[in-house]
C-alpha cells in the first residue's frame, strides 16, 4: 500500500468526505417510526421479559407487557392512585368489606373475538391462586379457592375470607385469561408452557414479535376498548446500559427511557426535545439488619449503627431522592411525616455502642449486595465509612440475587446487612407494611428475619379496617413501634426518573409501577 505524494492532505480530505457521507446517509431516526402511517412508540429498558404468563411473571418489564396485553377488573390511575373501571363497569362493596360484586362490561372481548365472561374471571383467579406464584401473594389469605363465583355471565362476586381494605388496589395485578384458550392448551403444567410464550388476552395490544434479550413488539388491537391514543404499536427495547438509554433518548432513537440514573437526568437537563419526569414514588431503599442472629441481634448495636450512618452521604449518592422518614414511604396513606427517626448523631451512636455487647466496636460485619446494582454498592461504601467511626469493619460482598434470596431462608445464613428495594405494587400502606414487616414473610427476601407480634397485630388490623381515619391511627402506631425496634437502616426514597421525547402525548404519572408504561392512552405527534 503506497501513499500518495501528499499523504496528510489527502487523508484528511478523504476522512472528512467520508464522514460527511456517513452522516448524511444515516436517515433521521425519527422517520423510522413514522413510516407508512405507523406510529410506533419505542421504550428503552434494561429488563427482559422471559415469561408472558400473567399468573407467573413478575418484574416491571413483565408488568408492562401484561398490563397492555391483558385486562383486569379495574385499573389504577392518577396520583394518588385510584381504581377505575376496566373489565368491571361498576362494583359494589358490602358494609363489612367482605363481599365485592362486579358487573362486567358486556362489550369485553378477547383478541380472538369471543366475549369475556364471568367464567373467565373465576377461572383466572383460581388459576392464580393454584399456581401461587407471581402476584398471587397479594390476595393470599384474602381470596380463597371458593371465594370467587360467577353470579351470571356478566357478574362476578368475591366473598373474601377476611376484609381487606386494599382489595381494589391489588386487582389491577391479577389479569384475566381466556378460559377456553388455556384449557385447550393445558399440557401437564396448568398451561404454563403455553402461556409462557402465547397470550390468551383481551387487552388493547397484542404481541407482534418477541426476540428474547432484544426487543418485544406490540401491535394495537381494534378491540372492545374505545378511545385511547393514536399509537399503532409499541416496542420494548432492551438497552442494558442506562447511559445508552440516555443517549438514545437524547438522539430521539427511543421515545421513553425508564431506567435512568440521577447522573443521566442531570446530563439530560436542557437537551432539546427531552421531557424529564422526576417524581416521588412509593419505592423505598433500605438496609435490613439481621435482628435474629449475629451481632446485629443486639438492639443497642442496631441503634448505634442507625445513629452513625451518614444520611447526608446516602442522599448525596442517591441524587434525586428523599430520605425515608420511618418504614412507610412518604406520602402514602397513614405515613407520619413528624415521626422521630434516626439521623446522624455520633454522640448518641457511641452512647448506644457503649451499652451494646461490643462497647468498643472491634467487630467485623458483612453486607451482601446485588452484583451490578450501582446504588447498593454506593450505599455499602457509605455504610463502610460510617461504621469505621464506631471501629467496626464492614466486609462488602457482591452476590447474585438468587444466592442472596437463598440466604434469606434462615437467620443463620442471613448476612448482617441486606439492602433491599421495596416497591409498592399498589398504592396502599398495607403493601409495604405487610410485605416488609409481617412475620409471615420471614424467610423471604422482603422480610427475612424481623418478627414482632405487636407489629404483626397492628398490620393485620390495618388490613382489615375499612375506616380510613382509624387505619391512619393504626399505622402511626405501627411506624413508631418499628422505629423503636430499629430493624432496618431507613434509607431513601429514590424519585422515579423517566425521560420522554416531547412528541409523546397523554402520559400521566402514577407513583405505582410507573416504569411499566401503560400505552393505551399515549399518542405520538
Amino acid at each position, binding site marked *: 500500500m503506497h501513499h500518495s505524494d501528499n499523504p496528510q492532505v489527502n487523508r484528511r480530505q478523504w476522512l472528512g468526505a467520508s464522514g460527511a457521507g456517513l452522516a448524511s446517509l444515516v436517515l433521521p431516526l425519527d422517520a423510522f417510526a413514522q413510516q407508512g402511517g405507523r406510529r410506533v412508540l419505542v421504550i428503552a429498558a434494561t429488563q427482559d421479559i422471559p415469561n408472558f404468563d400473567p399468573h407467573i411473571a413478575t418484574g416491571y418489564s413483565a408488568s408492562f407487557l401484561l398490563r397492555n396485553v391483558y385486562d383486569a377488573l379495574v385499573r389504577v390511575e392518577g396520583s394518588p392512585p385510584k381504581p377505575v373501571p376496566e373489565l368491571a363497569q361498576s362494583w359494589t362493596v358490602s358494609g363489612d368489606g367482605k363481599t365485592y360484586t362486579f358487573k362486567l362490561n358486556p362489550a369485553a372481548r378477547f383478541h380472538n373475538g369471543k366475549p369475556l365472561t364471568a367464567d373467565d374471571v373465576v377461572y383466572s383467579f383460581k388459576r392464580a391462586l393454584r399456581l401461587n406464584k407471581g402476584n398471587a401473594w397479594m390476595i393470599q389469605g384474602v381470596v380463597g379457592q371458593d371465594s370467587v363465583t360467577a353470579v351470571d355471565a356478566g357478574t362476578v362476586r368475591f366473598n373474601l375470607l377476611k376484609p381487606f381494605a386494599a382489595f381494589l388496589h391489588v386487582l389491577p395485578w391479577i389479569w384475566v385469561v381466556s378460559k377456553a384458550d388455556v384449557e385447550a392448551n393445558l399440557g401437564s403444567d396448568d398451561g404454563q408452557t403455553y402461556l409462557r410464550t402465547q397470550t390468551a388476552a383481551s387487552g388493547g395490544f397484542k404481541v407482534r414479535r418477541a426476540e428474547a434479550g432484544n426487543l418485544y413488539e406490540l401491535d394495537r388491537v381494534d378491540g372492545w376498548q374505545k378511545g385511547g391514543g393514536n399509537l399503532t404499536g409499541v416496542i420494548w427495547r432492551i438497552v442494558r446500559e442506562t*447511559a445508552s438509554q440516555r443517549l438514545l433518548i437524547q438522539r430521539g432513537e427511543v421515545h421513553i427511557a425508564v431506567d435512568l440514573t440521577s447522573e443521566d437526568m442531570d*446530563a439530560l437537563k436542557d437537551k432539546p426535545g427531552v421531557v424529564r419526569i422526576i417524581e416521588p414514588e412509593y419505592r423505598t431503599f433500605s438496609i435490613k439488619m439481621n435482628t435474629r442472629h449475629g451481632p446485629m441481634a443486639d438492639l443497642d448495636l442496631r441503634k448505634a449503627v442507625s445513629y452513625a450512618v451518614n444520611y*447526608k452521604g446516602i442522599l*448525596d449518592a442517591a441524587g434525586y431522592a428523599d430520605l425515608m422518614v420511618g418504614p412507610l414511604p412518604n406520602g402514602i396513606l397513614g405515613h407520619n411525616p413528624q415521626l422521630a427517626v434516626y439521623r446522624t448523631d455520633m454522640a448518641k451512636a457511641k452512647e448506644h455502642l457503649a451499652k451494646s455487647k461490643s462497647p468498643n466496636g472491634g467487630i467485623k460485619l458483612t453486607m451482601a449486595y446485588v*452484583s451490578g446494582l450501582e446504588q447498593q454498592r454506593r450505599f455499602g*461504601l457509605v455504610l463502610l465509612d460510617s461504621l*469505621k467511626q464506631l471501629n467496626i469493619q464492614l466486609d*462488602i*460482598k*457482591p452476590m447474585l440475587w438468587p444466592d442472596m434470596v437463598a440466604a434469606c431462608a434462615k437467620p443463620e445464613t442471613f448476612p448482617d446487612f441486606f439492602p433491599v428495594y421495596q416497591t409498592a405494587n399498589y398504592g396502599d400502606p398495607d403493601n409495604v407494611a405487610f410485605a416488609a414487616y409481617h412475620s409471615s414473610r420471614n424467610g423471604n427476601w422482603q422480610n427475612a428475619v424481623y418478627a414482632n407480634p405487636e407489629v404483626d397485630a397492628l398490620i393485620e388490623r390495618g388490613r382489615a379496617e375499612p375506616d380510613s381515619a382509624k387505619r391512619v391511627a393504626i399505622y402511626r402506631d405501627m411506624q413508631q413501634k418499628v422505629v423503636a425496634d430499629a430493624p432496618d437502616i431507613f434509607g431513601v426514597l429514590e424519585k422515579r426518573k423517566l425521560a420522554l421525547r416531547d412528541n409523546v402525548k397523554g402520559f400521566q404519572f402514577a407513583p405505582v409501577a410507573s416504569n411499566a408504561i401503560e400505552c393505551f392512552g399515549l399518542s405520538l405527534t
Partner: protein
Amino acid sequence: MSAEMSTPSARRPRSAGREAWRRGLYRFAQSRLSVLGLAIVSLLMLMALVGPWLAPYPEHLEGAVSTAARFQPPSAQHWFGTNEMGQDVFSLVMGGARVSVLAGLAVVLLGALAGTLVGGIAGFAGGWTDDLLMRLSDLKLTIPGLVLAMAVAAALGPGIFNMVVAISLSWWPGYARLVRGEVLARKEDLYVTAARAIGARPARLLLVHILPNVMTPVIVKMSLDMGFAILTVASLGFIGIGVKPPTPEWGSLLSVARSYMPDFWWTAIFPGLAIFLAVFGFNLLGDGLRDVFDPRSRR
C-alpha cells in the same frame, strides 16, 4: 590494544556465561522500546509496592467517601478528578496498580507452575502419558478462555483469589506445550544420560537436572504473558467478576464509569489508560526480553 588474553579452561566457562549476559544487556539497552518497557514496568512495580503510601488520598483506597466532592473534574487537588463517591481517581488508579500487578503475577505464576509440571511430566514420561496430557491441553486450548474464566469465577464467588484461579485454568496449556518441547529436546542430553547412568531416579532427573535448564524460555513467556494476564483480570473486572468493594481494580473502575460518559469522562479515561499502559509496558519489556534470550526469533 594490549594483548590481554584470558587464561584458557579455568576461567572460560564463567566468563562465557557472563559475556552472554553482558551482550544480552547491551542488545536490550540498544532498543529504545525495550528500555521504555522496562521503565513503565518498573514504575508499575513501584506503584504496586508503595502505591497505598504514596497516594495523595490513601483513605479512599480503604473505602472512605466524600460525597460532597462528587464528580469534580481534574484539578490541582485531584489530578484525575473525583468519582461518583467523591473519591480521588488518581489514588484509585494507583491502588489499582497493586491489584492488577499482583493478580496478573499470580495468574502467570500459577499457570506457569501448573503448565510446567504437566509439560515436564509429559515430555519426560513420553508414551501414552505424553499423548494424554497433550491431548488434554490441546482440548483446553479450543475452549474459549474468557467464557471459561467467567463461568468458573462466577461459580466460585467474588474475591481476587477465585478470579486468579479461574483465569489460570486457561493459562497452563501454553506452558505445558513449551516445557514439553524443551524437555523432549533435553532428554537425551549428555548430562542427563550421565545422571541416569549413575542411577538417579526419574523425579530427581526431572526436577533437579532438566527443568532448571528449560526455565529461560518459560521466563520469557511469563514476561510476555504478564500483559495479557493483566488484561484478562481487567476484563473480568469489567464484567463485574472478581474484586469486591472497596478494592480498586482498573476493570471494575472502568465498568462503573461507563455510565458517566461523556460528561464525567475522567472517571473512565484514566483507569482505561492505566490498563493500556500497563499492558503496553509489559509487552514492550517481554518483546525486548525475547529478542535478548531468543535471537532466533528476531527479524
